[in-house]
């Protein structure tokens, strides 16, 4: 048993619903107790979806448990098939139904329905949401295409003269999937490559049948599509690339990889109109140098964010982690390249503790980290699911491709104090209207009316004293670095075995840590 306060991922059947809700022509019958219908609101409230996800829940109750739950499932299944007339019906258990062992998969396949049935096994007690989405997508694609032969697929592929690719993995409730798909589609169209099928988002079962016609699969969201891409490679010898075009450099790498696999020439420089490189080199951005940033999210977004933060914005990545154990390896290796140890955890409190200890100036995380950062008075940008309604914006706001890189620049730089502003803050810090307790104008929204958290008067080590003069000197240091200065000085004092911190100690420490 695991004590869970907040959970980064939902149960696996929510992943199955994400795949179903992304598509047309499929319907999911979920054997689930009353209450599990809460999942609807994730789609209709968080993503403001105008239709209910295509799911029918059996919503069994205690009085049904005396052996009639299987009948209830069959009744629900038949009613849903008749009412929604899907092209494909998927069936699954939620966590409770898994315990009753009604086997909805075999019940449904032998129910004599005139619609193809894809049974899903959701392993609710060992797996989570992203795995559930991945498994569902794989079962759906494999279930529909298992019969198709390599020769058929190959022949179909010869018909096209322009190279074509599939974009696999985008789903409802994914992070900015809607806009990423548009961005990557237009990027590829611009270099003479057709997009054959996008799935699951916006696809029908008929579209899935056309997947083998493309020359290449692009695994846009490995969390959801990697196992499907691997199967398609085995089954149809259809290559895939999993270079995710998140960030400026990654987008260029992505285009180069696509060109290579397709043997199709792409003049990357000619289409590279990204503003991030110049914005990042412009003088105002000098202040971004070495900003301490903490990154946490799903593996794909965390790894990509680490590269953008360190190589494209010049930040110091001081912490990197993921909640996604299945994909932890990539995060571990990126972390070790940055000289860090990756934080792999589901436990929100562990993440909070890490943020508190590391004192970053910026947190790039999920909705959970947004709350952590807010509480600690640190700027934050959301880079990954789980996300809240505000992270499904009305405007076009991709994360991928060149425009995505522009968006990342704006979104991550915005919560920080701007370059020139940083100097003005120092100049005016004693001004009565413009003092330390006034939050920078652009941060007021995030911090609300909450006062800037005051630095603790206590020092970290017992018996360590600040001389009055040193205290006064400390207050002259701009507030946004004062915490760091205080901590470093105390650390230094402890290392040196000092009991009182004098003005001298403060500057000794400064020199010590600037080496």
């Amino acid at each position, binding site marked *: 048993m695991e004590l869970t306060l907040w959970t980064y991922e939902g149960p696996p059947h929510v992943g199955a619903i994400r795949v179903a809700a992304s598509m047309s022509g499929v319907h999911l019958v979920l054997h689930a107790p009353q209450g*599990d219908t*809460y999942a609807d609101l994730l789609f209709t409230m968080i993503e403001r*979806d105008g239709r209910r996800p295509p799911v029918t829940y059996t919503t*069994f*109750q205690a009085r049904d448990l005396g052996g009639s739950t299987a009948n209830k499932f069959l009744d629900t299944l038949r*009613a849903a098939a008749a009412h929604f007339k899907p092209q494909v019906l998927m069936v699954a258990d939620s966590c409770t139904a898994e315990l009753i062992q009604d086997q909805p998969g075999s019940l449904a396949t032998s129910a004599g329905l005139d619609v193809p049935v894809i049974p899903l096994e959701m392993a609710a007690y060992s797996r989570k949401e992203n795995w559930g989405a991945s498994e569902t997508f794989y079962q759906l694609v494999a279930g529909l295409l298992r019969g198709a032969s390599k020769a058929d697929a190959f022949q179909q592929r010869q018909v096209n003269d322009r190279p074509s690719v599939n974009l696999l993995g985008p789903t409802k409730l994914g992070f900015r999937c809607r806009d990423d798909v548009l961005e990557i589609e237009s990027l590829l169209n611009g270099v003479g490559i057709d997009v054959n099928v996008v799935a699951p988002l916006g696809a029908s079962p008929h579209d899935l049948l056309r997947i083998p016609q493309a020359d290449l699969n692009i695994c846009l969201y490995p969390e959801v599509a990697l196992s499907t891409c691997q199967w398609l490679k085995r089954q149809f010898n259809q290559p895939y690339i999993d270079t995710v075009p998140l960030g400026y450099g990654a987008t260029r790498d992505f285009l180069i990889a696509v060109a290579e696999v397709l043997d199709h020439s792409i003049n990357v420089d000619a289409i590279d109109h990204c503003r991030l490189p110049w914005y990042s080199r412009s003088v105002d951005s000098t202040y971004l140098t070495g900003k301490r940033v903490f990154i946490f999210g799903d593996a794909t977004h965390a790894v990509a964010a680490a590269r953008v933060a360190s190589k494209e914005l010049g930040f110091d990545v001081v912490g990197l982690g993921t909640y996604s154990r299945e994909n932890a390896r990539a995060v571990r290796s990126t972390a070790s390249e940055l000289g860090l140890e990756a934080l792999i955890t589901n436990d929100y409190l562990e993440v*909070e503790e890490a943020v508190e200890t590391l004192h970053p100036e910026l947190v790039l995380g999920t909705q959970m980290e947004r709350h952590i950062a807010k509480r600690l008075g640190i700027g934050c940008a959301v880079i990954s699911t789980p996300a809240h309604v505000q992270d499904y914006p009305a405007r076009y706001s991709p994360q991928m491709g060149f425009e995505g890189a522009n968006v990342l620049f704006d979104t991550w730089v915005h919560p920080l104090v701007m370059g020139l502003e940083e100097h003005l803050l120092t100049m005016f810090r004693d001004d009565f209207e413009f003092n330390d307790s006034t939050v920078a104008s652009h941060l007021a929204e995030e911090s609300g009316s909450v006062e800037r958290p005051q630095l603790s008067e206590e020092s970290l080590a017992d018996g360590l004293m600040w001389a009055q003069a040193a205290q006064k000197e400390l207050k002259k240091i701009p507030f946004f670095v004062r915490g760091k200065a205080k901590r470093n000085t105390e650390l230094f004092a402890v290392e040196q075995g000092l009991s009182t911190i004098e003005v001298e100690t403060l500057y000794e420490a400064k020199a010590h840590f600037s080496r």
Partner: protein
Amino acid sequence: MHGAVLASDTGSAEPLDLTVEHGQRAVFCGLTSIVWLHRKIQDAFFLVVGSRTCAHLIQSAAGVMIFAEPRFATAVLEDRDLAGMADCVEEVERVIGQVIKRRPNLKTIFLVGSCPSEVIKLDLDNIARKFKERHKGQLRVVAYSGSGIETTFTQGEDSCLSNLVPDMPQASEQDQKLLIVGSLPDIVEDQFARLFAEMGITNVEFFPGRQSEYLPGVGPGTRILLAQPYLGDTARALISRGATLLKAPYPYGAQGTLEWFRAAALSFDIAVERFQDCTRAPFERAKRSLEVYKTELAGRRVAFLPDSQLEIPLARFLARECGMHPTEVATPFYDATTMSSETPLLPSGVQWYEGQNLDSSLERVRNSRPDLTVCGLGIANPLEAEGLRTKWSIELMFSPIQGFDQAGDLAELFARPLRRKSRLEVGAWN
């Protein structure tokens, strides 16, 4: 003036035509009530023993995760627990230990059963008993079920409170007191307490209180007045301890609140004049606050899909005090103990449902196209997308809506979606 007694009014006295539906339900389970219970009872912790779904449900229903470390959590069952590799009882005990260690000042831990824990027949009562023994006097451990197979949405509070009743001390027959049952926002609780005191009913207690350390006593001298319409089991548990249930409509709207107070005044032999003196000003104020909304709501048709069990009293309020026409009123379940003072007050011609069949209830509102549909969070936007105006019912659980001084706020919750429709010149509502 306000002497018009609701109960003797001319509302339809015939039993309503009840249709029972057994289909897919779009309701939350009882775990959801933890969202407001943990805010109300501030020295308690709610530990759900369940699955990741349970944890996900509570944080999704709460909408946002505001509190760094909430006073609720889920002990998530894993494969090794189910495969018998780990002893579930020992595991629950270990997790309780973790909770106590993190929060040594807790006075009560609620062990909340879920669908999976009920299906595997995990005996949380027994674990609760054991812990209560071990921490005698310092920590109360109470088990109750918030599972979806046994409870819907607000019924979780009923299950929680009714399982606290055995722990309430015995009160004597001489201890003549009024017990207000059902969690209320603090501001409403304070208003109610002031008004009871003015009337001369001084021995008033609220259950649940803000602190769980102290539980009110119950006995033959206890009269209970329900502040929430979903507490049938709690009422019956209190009655079995000797308490008397006062029959009253629920304190929604000016008239509803007046009748609710009147039930208490009658029971405590408060002189009619004193009752009228105390209630006149707030009653008139409440009526005034309703005036503006009445012009907006009167003549509009409203449908209630089953969700919170507040549907019947709210339909009564909207019909009687705002002039709306309820077309359909559906509740997850019907309990005569809690509803007998309300149903006769509903206007005739209301279609009345117990239970749900989601697809057919959606078809009905699509066909009848009411001006407003009160429904759960999951189906509000899809109905809006079809051009129907909706009010999410969970807001009714999170806002102070009871009492004289909230009557206007309550009406405003229903008027706002209609106001919005009249303002916007984008998109299309019918």
